[in-house]
């Protein structure tokens, strides 16, 4: 019987799921993904995790609890770095230790370290390490990994073309209603796990779409475009997300077709506390683009969020249509 491996539908699931899925399936494992985030999963996570952790980490705990009794092993890699000379949030680096010391009764945890800080080739080492639990033949692992990388590239391309992970994985994207209004171009910046988890962001992207907006995410911009902009920073940004977010913001500033920027962050996010502030300062200093920060945590209410979103969209629309009719004092 093949081994079942559990992948929590949280954090880097939204970034790497096609890679992991193909890799483990090629090695003959059965991949089980936890259920979609729900109130129950969130509550379970909040209950078990330390209070100070951020919402995504709490939800991750909920997903692990959702999986733990129905799989042979859990895949919780230790992400130290996913790109050369860059880090990610320290919580990713300590994630397997945090989960192991917080939750009890876990099945085996595959805590392969992914550290590409020195070289991108280290990804293969991580693959060998994770693969050895399923297959002793290194060549076979290599082949599975190559195939997984192909899938991952394809996925990235799909994201760049404007598809959302929800549409790609679940294949039942609700179509947005046709609407007479002119579509707005709204850029949404945020961590993958906040942006693409529909429960966490209370369906933000769908809501934007139904108020007739084209969504631009960081994933839709090419690396070259982003890197060209980040090179202008006086000091290199050492977080992968930070570099991409700041680079994307600088790029958006120069585009003339952006009607608004929304930054979605989770409460207490260390990386975002700086990145969001930098992005906001740049946008406010150098442009007139409306900017909205949405902070989410386990207490966020949907009504409040809807109100802010609607007000933001209305403001942009009014700006387009009645700017000239309004007196300067409002």
């Amino acid at each position: 019987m093949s081994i079942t491996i559990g992948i929590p539908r949280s954090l880097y699931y939204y970034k790497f799921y096609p890679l992991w899925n193909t890799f483990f399936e090629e090695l003959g494992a059965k991949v089980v993904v936890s259920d979609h985030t729900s109130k129950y999963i969130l509550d379970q996570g909040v209950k078990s995790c330390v209070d100070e952790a951020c919402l995504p980490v709490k939800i991750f705990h909920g997903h692990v609890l959702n999986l733990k009794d129905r799989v042979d092993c859990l895949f919780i890699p230790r992400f130290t770095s996913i790109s050369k000379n860059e880090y990610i949030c320290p919580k990713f680096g300590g994630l397997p230790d945090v989960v192991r010391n917080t939750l009890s009764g876990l099945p085996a945890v595959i805590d392969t370290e992914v550290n590409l800080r020195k070289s991108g080739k280290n990804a293969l080492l991580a693959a060998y390490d994770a693969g050895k639990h399923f297959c002793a033949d290194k060549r076979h692992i290599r082949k599975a990994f190559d195939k997984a990388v192909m899938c991952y590239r394809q996925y990235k391309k799909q994201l760049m073309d404007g598809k959302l992970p929800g549409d790609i994985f679940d294949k039942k994207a609700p179509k947005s209603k046709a609407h007479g209004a002119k579509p707005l171009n709204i850029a949404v910046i945020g961590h993958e796990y906040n942006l693409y988890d529909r429960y966490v962001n209370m369906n933000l992207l769908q809501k934007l779409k139904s108020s007739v907006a084209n969504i631009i995410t960081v994933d839709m911009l090419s690396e070259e475009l982003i890197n060209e902009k980040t090179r202008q920073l006086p000091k290199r940004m050492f977080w992968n997300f930070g570099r991409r977010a700041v680079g994307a913001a600088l790029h958006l500033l120069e585009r003339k077709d952006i009607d608004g920027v929304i930054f979605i962050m989770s409460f207490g996010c260390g990386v975002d506390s700086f990145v969001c502030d930098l992005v906001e300062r740049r946008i406010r200093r150098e442009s007139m683009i409306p900017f909205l920060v949405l902070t989410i945590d386990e207490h966020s209410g949907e009504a409040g969020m809807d109100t802010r979103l609607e007000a933001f969209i209305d403001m942009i629309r009014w700006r387009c249509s009645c700017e000239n009719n309004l007196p300067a004092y409002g």
Partner: protein
Amino acid sequence: MKITFPHMGNTYICAKALLDDLGIEYLIPPFNSKKTLEIGTKYAPEFACLPLKINLGNFLQAYEMGADTILITGGCGPCRFGYYGEMHREILRDIGCEMDVITLEWPDKGAGEFLHRIRKLTGKLNPYRILKAVREAATTAMQADDLERLANRVRPRELQRGTTDRIYKAFLNLVKKADGSAGIKKLIRDTAGELLSIETDMDFRPLRVGIVGEIYSTIDPYTNLNISSRLGSMGIEADRRVTVSGWIIEHMIKKALRLPRDLSYADAAKPYLGAMIGGHAQETVGHTVMYARDGYDGVIQIYPLTCMPEIVAQSILPSVEKDFDIPVLTLIMDEMTGEAGYQTRLEAFGDLLKKRRERGVYGKTVALSGG
């Protein structure tokens, strides 16, 4: 050019020694106070960690007094501290405060840029004199840390409560007037003599508590509401392994020269936290294990709200607590922290430790609630 630098506990002693010896003009910002924090909180991003806010307050207070250049250290992640320099630059720019920021770190552009920054700081000084000043500053930092340790040892044993604090506080103010590393070292020796002559209870065996956590909040007495003095006055001896001199020597000098570093904490942390994840998470876990092995009565973890590495450490500490049977108290600091609540928690923790010790003496029959 008038240089200023942020406060972090006794760091100003070391910085003063260095800048005095190099003959660079500088200005020590006023000691951290409510005002410093208030100014910082006003302009810093809401979710930034507490040290950034206090540092910003330091700079703005120094700016008012005439400083125009900021000297700080940096890093390259994953802890936020590495980006402090850039954040300060952006914030100061937006509030129209023209200050230059010199970050002492290894820049991406390599050695040339580093030398450029040093030259900007020191002008045409000869390299030998610079190296000598760095060495003197490092030894001054070590002696200042030794003095603090001595004060922490004497405080719980003093017969007249408050004597140690009076002498130590006077020392902190006198340092500002001392001249160069030689003057500071003499002052440290004199103060050590005074501390040693305090009347103490030789037979008293105080409870011992280890302080672990994020470096700034554990080292800076304003941020941690003077925890070692609070504990000392309850008759508890506080110890802390992360020090200014340790940070300078282990983290900066030894790393730059690629000398072998003291990594005993990493070995101790290994079973719980297998990798370096930035900040002081590994030190926190490792030191907690080491304190438990050394027979300490308890451990207190302190960190500023939203500190990423310490949240990881905090989630791991309950396992250490269980495995070694040592109580751990976590205190999280931010600009909203109230003194009374803090004091209550410390007192409760002190009582708990006292009861645990008594239970050791009388056996486990004593009910905790019974007193």
